[in-house]
């Protein structure tokens, strides 16, 4: 999924240089502190980050807004729609 105009993130999580499970761990830490409606942008170099975040958004009911391939990393944007009971 790629959008031409990425959303403005509420928080940017820079996980570049970390390997699995670094990016998804960093995303979860941001998720714990996020509010409904926030957009988290995850920057990652680990190739597993895309599929892990895709699977998590499908399972959790949060929205995968965009996956943007940059030259040496990927930007993954997630909008928080669901958190807790």
């Amino acid at each position: 999924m790629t959008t031409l105009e990425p959303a403005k993130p509420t928080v940017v999580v820079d996980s570049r240089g970390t390997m699995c499970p670094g990016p998804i761990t960093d995303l979860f830490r941001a998720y714990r502190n996020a509010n409904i409606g926030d957009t988290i942008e995850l920057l990652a170099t680990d190739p597993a980050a895309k599929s892990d975040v895709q699977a998590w958004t499908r399972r959790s009911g949060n929205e995968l807004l965009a996956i943007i391939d940059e030259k040496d990393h990927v930007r993954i944007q997630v909008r928080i729609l669901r958190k807790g009971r």
Partner: protein
Amino acid sequence: MRLPVNIVVAGGGTGGTLTANLLAKHLASEISDKEVNVFLVSGARQHVFQPGYLEVAFKGKDPSKITRNEKDLVGRRVQFVQEDAERIDLKERIVKLESGKNLSFDYLVIATGSVPNPEAIPGLKEGSLNFHTSGAESRKVWDALQQFEQGHLVVGIAGVPHKCPPSPDEAAFLVDDYLRARKVREKVKLTFVTPYPRPYPAEPMSKVVEPRFEERGIEVVTFFNVESVEPTKREVYSLEGETVHYDLLIMVPPHRGADVVIKSDIGDRDGWVPTDKNTMRVDGFETVYAIGDATNIPVSKTGVTAHLEAVVAVHNIVSSVHGTSERYKYNGRINCPFEMGSRKAAFVVGSYEMPVKQIQPTRMRYAMKKAFGRFYWRTLSGRWDWLLGLYFGETYKVEKTKAIPANAKEGVAQSVAGVLGALLGYSPTLQPRAFVSKRLQKNHELHGRNFDIRGSF
């Protein structure tokens, strides 16, 4: 009279104890000549071999068997300050102790570890047992398991990050072993909950774990970030909106940085110290290092990584004190023992450049894990690093950098020393300690600091 160089190590866990002992080993002559002081600051009287918590919780081991007196592990050249650091001022280069005394430093190693933080999740402390906070808490797990006859037993990860990534999976395997040995396994539903997409976070090792969980009938609930626990209902809830009922809940709590890091405002939001992942130097401070769980670097929080990082920090400090141009860089090597039940174990092995490998559990690796456990106390002395080096292979790289003299005069002196050294056939890097000491002295004169801490301590 030349004033001594003060090296302070804050924290007496695996990394801190080893760091102090290694520094004392490599700077033995300077310490004897009263040119260097090595201080270990730690209020802990007891040193716990924390991987042993698994044995206490799931095999009934006596907690006293995994504990020794810290003072017995500290070398004679190390000045052991048996109280905790209350506050660290990196700019003023002062460690304030609980007693109110100040300890000034030229070099500092922050080895203050991590703190299990069950309070971060509502109801977790009251509703679950854990094997990460102490021997006594681990013993409660063993006591509860002995009473457990039937029902739903849930093991898992309550939050990230946490110490020892394999330990939650190890717990599930060992609970399964124990219940089978008691012949009550068929009356117990065993579930493993994890925030990760798979039973083990790193996929290559998850492929090893997954079929073994299936064989043993251990159910897995993925993407389960614990939001809260309701002890009265015996329910655990996830941020993702799911609910799991339990009869016995054994959870690894999320961890945070040490109180002193948070109070001193030298860490990030969760108290992890921003650290260069190669040199182990704290961002923005030339002579301050952080190692082990205390850092924010992207490797497992384990004793092995603390050990390997300690070696790098020590070499960099010794190199700086000696004025050599060698700089050591940690390569992110991890080597976590991973017990998978039935007296078999694997290791989680990887580095910054090498993704985690897939390694199968064997009896031999189990024996190695046990041997490492017995060998642990000796490794803290730093005298066995040659042997560990043979096992681990390359864990850091050594780079030669151009030494930067404190002033032009010293630069000329070093150049002359280099030429003389080349003519006489010795390495000039062995000689310039005097330059460094003078340089440090000059630094202190410039900053107007009291260089002799004995006046204030």
